[in-house]
Every structure is written in C-alpha cells, then in structure tokens.
C-alpha cells in the first residue's frame, strides 16, 4: 500500500519535472519556429506593407507568382547555380574522401580541409572578391602571366554565376569530404580484401563496393547540400548583389528585396512558401530513392 503511493508520488514528480524541463524549449519552439511558420503561411494569402493592416487577398499572390517573370527568372538562376554547384562539389568531395580514406587518416589534413567551411560566408566572399579582382586579383595575374586575357569573373553576366558556384565549392568541398570520409569508415575493410582476392580492380571496387555502401551517407549529404544551395544569399550580398543585370538574382535575394526593400511582406511570404514547397518536394523524392535502396549491408 505504502509502496504504491510512493510509486505514484514518484510518477507525478517525474511528470512535473518533465514538463518543467521541456517548458523553455517549448516556448522557444512555439515563439520562433511553430507560430512563425504558420504565420508565414497565413501571410502568404495577404497584402501587407506593415504600415496598413494586412488585407486578405486569397490566392491572388500565388496566381501572381505563377506568372511573375522575375520570380521565374530567379528560380531559373537558382537552379542554374545548384546545377553548377552540387554535382561538381559532390564529385570533388567524394574523390577527396576516398583519397583521405586510402592514404592518410591524418586529423590535421582533415582539419585543414574543413577550414574554409568554418569561415563566415561574408569572409569567404570578400576573400574571393579580392582574389578575383579584374585588375589586381591574384587569379588574373596568374592568367595574364600565362599569356591569356584577363577575365571579368564576377563582373560578367555569363561568368558571375559559375564563379559564385566555384567560390562555394571551395568553401564546402572539404566539409562534404569529411562527412563522406566518416561514411567510408563504416565500410568494413574485409569486403575490399575479399573483392581483391576475387581479382577486382580499383575501379570495380569503387563502383561495386564503395558507392553502394556509401549511398545512405551520400544521399544525406546531397539532401542537406541541395537545401543549403537553394538558399544561397550571403555570398551574393558581398560579390554581386544580384547583378550584373539580373544574372545572380537568386530566389533568396528576390525574397529579401520584396520583404526588406519594398516591404511587401505578404508577397515575400508567398515566395518563401513556394521555395519551401520546392525544397520539400526535392527532399521527399531523394528520401524515397534513399529508402528504396537502403539495403546495403543488412
């Protein structure tokens, strides 16, 4: 009898403490994640300039969005950036990861490789703005000393986006390589030994063992870097500010302009929701693909 009441008190105690323990996080979650998300969705159905009260306009914003040439341009530019950025970055990172795995496990080298990722985007952008300066930049000095013409890089409509993609590959390739390297450590070495005994060469082992067994990590890396890549912004603030002309006016920059330059909060929210829908669709597609093929070692 006494034991049961004791247990009940302890149980009630546990619940009380549990609620107190999660309370701060629930406040933070509601105030800055949950409610803002819902509010953003609601705002996307309004016209709101912060001065006058918000006006409900139904799906007018979404209809406008579908025929908004500037938005479609921003979307195209962003997709172009993602296509320039992700495949090359992933391939380089994979190559680096395999080399690290095979030839050196040195933490010092891995440390150096993640250094660019530890630096703020703003600093990385300034650094490359200087390296790529048309008149004095080091890269152009090298190009000219080799007898070629100087390149405008960030100042050119055609070169600006590839250049920004290259800058971000510099910042992220090492980081991505470290993630993939960690994945490689989980592949048992005896699989390779068995394959070597069977006479498999390097290329066959890579295609037959490394890639399939690395797939879960690879998919994770692809999903997160794609989501990040679609939200490119900081680099553009420093290097091109959306220009030259509209060559680097990505979706995030477009949202920024609507919200904080034109103060059209409703339409900015609509673009944000659209970007979110695009990202979630990509994620779901990739996750499906991942689940369907997750049968590696098991």
């Amino acid at each position: 009898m006494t034991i049961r009441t004791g247990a009940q008190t302890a149980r009630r105690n546990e619940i009380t403490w549990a609620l107190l323990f999660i309370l701060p996080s629930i406040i933070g979650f509601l105030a800055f994640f949950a409610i803002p998300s819902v509010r953003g969705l609601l705002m996307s159905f309004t016209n709101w300039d912060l001065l006058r009260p918000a006006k409900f306009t139904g799906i007018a914003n979404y209809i406008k969005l579908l025929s908004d040439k500037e938005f479609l341009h921003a979307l195209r530019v962003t997709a172009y950036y993602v296509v320039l950025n992700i495949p090359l970055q992933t391939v380089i990172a994979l190559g680096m990861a395999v080399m690290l795995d095979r030839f050196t496990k040195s933490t010092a080298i891995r440390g150096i490789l993640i250094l660019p990722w530890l630096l703020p985007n703003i600093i990385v952008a300034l650094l490359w703005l200087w390296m790529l300066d048309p008149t004095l930049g080091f890269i152009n000095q090298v190009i000219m000393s080799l007898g070629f013409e100087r390149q405008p890089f960030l100042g050119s409509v055609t070169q600006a986006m590839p250049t920004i993609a290259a800058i971000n590959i510099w910042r992220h390739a090492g980081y991505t390589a470290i993630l993939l390297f960690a994945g490689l450590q989980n592949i048992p070495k005896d699989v390779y030994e068995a394959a070597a005994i069977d006479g498999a060469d390097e290329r066959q082992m890579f295609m037959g063992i490394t890639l399939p067994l690395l797939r879960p990590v690879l998919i994770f890396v692809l999903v997160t870097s794609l989501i990040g890549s679609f939200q490119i912004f900081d680099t553009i603030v420093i290097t091109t500010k959306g220009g030259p002309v509209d060559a680097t006016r990505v979706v995030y920059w477009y949202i920024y302009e609507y919200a904080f330059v034109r103060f059209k909060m409703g339409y900015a929210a609509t673009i944000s929701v659209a970007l979110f829908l695009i990202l979630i669709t990509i994620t779901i597609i990739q996750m499906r693909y991942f689940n369907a093929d997750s049968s590696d070692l098991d």
Partner: protein
Amino acid sequence: MTTLKKTKAGISTRQIFAWIVLGMIVLVTLFPVWWVVRTGFSSKQEIYVDTFNLLPVGPTLNNFKRVLGMFSSEEAVAQGGTAGAMNFWMDLKNSLVVSTTTILGQTFFSAMAAYAFARLKFRFRDQVFFLYLTAMMIPGVVTLVPNYILMARELQWMNTYRGIIAPSFLMTPFAVFFLRQFFLSINHELEEAAKLDGASIPLIFVRVILPMSVPALSTLAILQFLGNWNDYLWPFLIGKGADMRTLTVGLAVFQSQTPQGAPDWGGLMAGTTLSLIPTILIFLFFGRRAVNAIQFTGFR
C-alpha cells in the same frame, strides 16, 4: 613473388600521386587565406605595383591601424583608405556577446529538454519530439520574415541584443535532437544508483548527467557557436545601428563604404584578417573536436 613486388611498386607510385594531389588541395585551401593576410600587411601603393609577391609588399601596419580607427578620417583618406573605419572592437564585442549568450542558453535549455525526451516519461512525449524533428526540416527562409515582423512590431526588439539572440536562445531543433541522441546512448546505472539514494530529478540532471556529457555538450556548443558567429542576415536585419553590428555585418558595411572603382583592398583585407582570428583560434584549440563533431553530424 613477382606479382607481389609489382603491386607494391604500383601502390607506391599511386601513393606519390595521391600525396601530390592532396598537397595541391591543401595549397588551394590555404593559399587564399594567406593572400588575405599578405594583403592586409601590404601598403596601398605596393599592392598596385608588386602584384605577384608572395610576401607582404612594403610591409606596414597602417591598414590595421586604419581599420581599428587609430587614424583620423583625413589621415585615412590621405592613405587611400575610406573615411569610415570598421569599429572593430565594438563589432568584436557584439559578436562575442551574441554568440556566447546564444550558445549558453541554447545548450542548457536544449539539454534539459533532451533529457526529458530521452529519460522521463510523460504524455505526448514522442509527439512533441516529432514536432521538433519536423521543424528541423523547415528551412530558415520560411520563418525569416515572420520572425522579423515579430521583432519589429510585437516585441519591439529591433537593435537590441535580445532581438538577435532570442530565436535560438531557448532551443534549436538540432540541439535537442543531437543531445537526445547522446543521452539515449549513455549508461543508466549511475542514474539508477542516484535515484535509489533518493536524489531528485533536477539533482540527477545537474550532478550526474551534465558532468558525464561535457564532451557532447562542448561539441554542440562549438558547432553552434560557429554557426552564430558566421551568421549574417539575421544580425544585419535586427542590429542595424552601428552599436549593434556583429563582425560579419561590420565587414559587409565596411565593404559597401569602400569606393566601387578602386576598393581599399589593404583596409578590407586587414579587417578580414582581424575577423579571421577568432575562428582560427577556435580551429587551433578545438580543431580535432570540430572535425569529429562534423563527422558526427553526418549521421544525425
């Protein structure tokens, strides 16, 4: 025998090749950072003339002095700089205050929540945790505008530390998730023993769990510190006034003030060099832990 020798020789040439490639990657990674430092220490006139020298040309501290506001604006302009200095110390202080406060709050409150999710039993526990997990999937762009309006209108926290800090002070979904995973992995025995001794839940948390979790807590803190330190858009939107700028915002403002045609590269790179120092320090002291932490995040 012969085949064995052959493969051995093959491996060693491949190794040489691999080391050369790795060496080039390290060079490509480090050289631009060195070039920033080199330019920061070079004098304005020499930068234009001696563009190829690997060492600082016409070595000088003037760029640094200018950025740190040790010259009057007339002197700065005479040197080819801009009248606006960077107010480095103020920006540094703001970055330190914002990042440190954020991670202290976030780590502690997220640890409390994570402990409850990992060890305590209460109704809707798994549902609430699932909600947190979904929030991890929502990209920052969705909450950016609503959170800005919250600060600008309802809370009126524009241009304050608390406005910059608040959104990630009480939790981030990732921090809760990260620590919950860790708490699930640690041994129950010590807790059970403490419980039998009659220790209360908060006492167990503070005296048993937290001390056991120092590696995980500091790993998380380093990751989140860097994230906060590197953040640009949020502190820029909230801390617009000169007295609220963080380092990233200060650098961006400094860049926007320098003339477009002939930027003050010496000054910009001196400012960048100074801003690099905190990250480099973290890197030197916690490099190994940071590498391991990043490797861990791959498996979240």
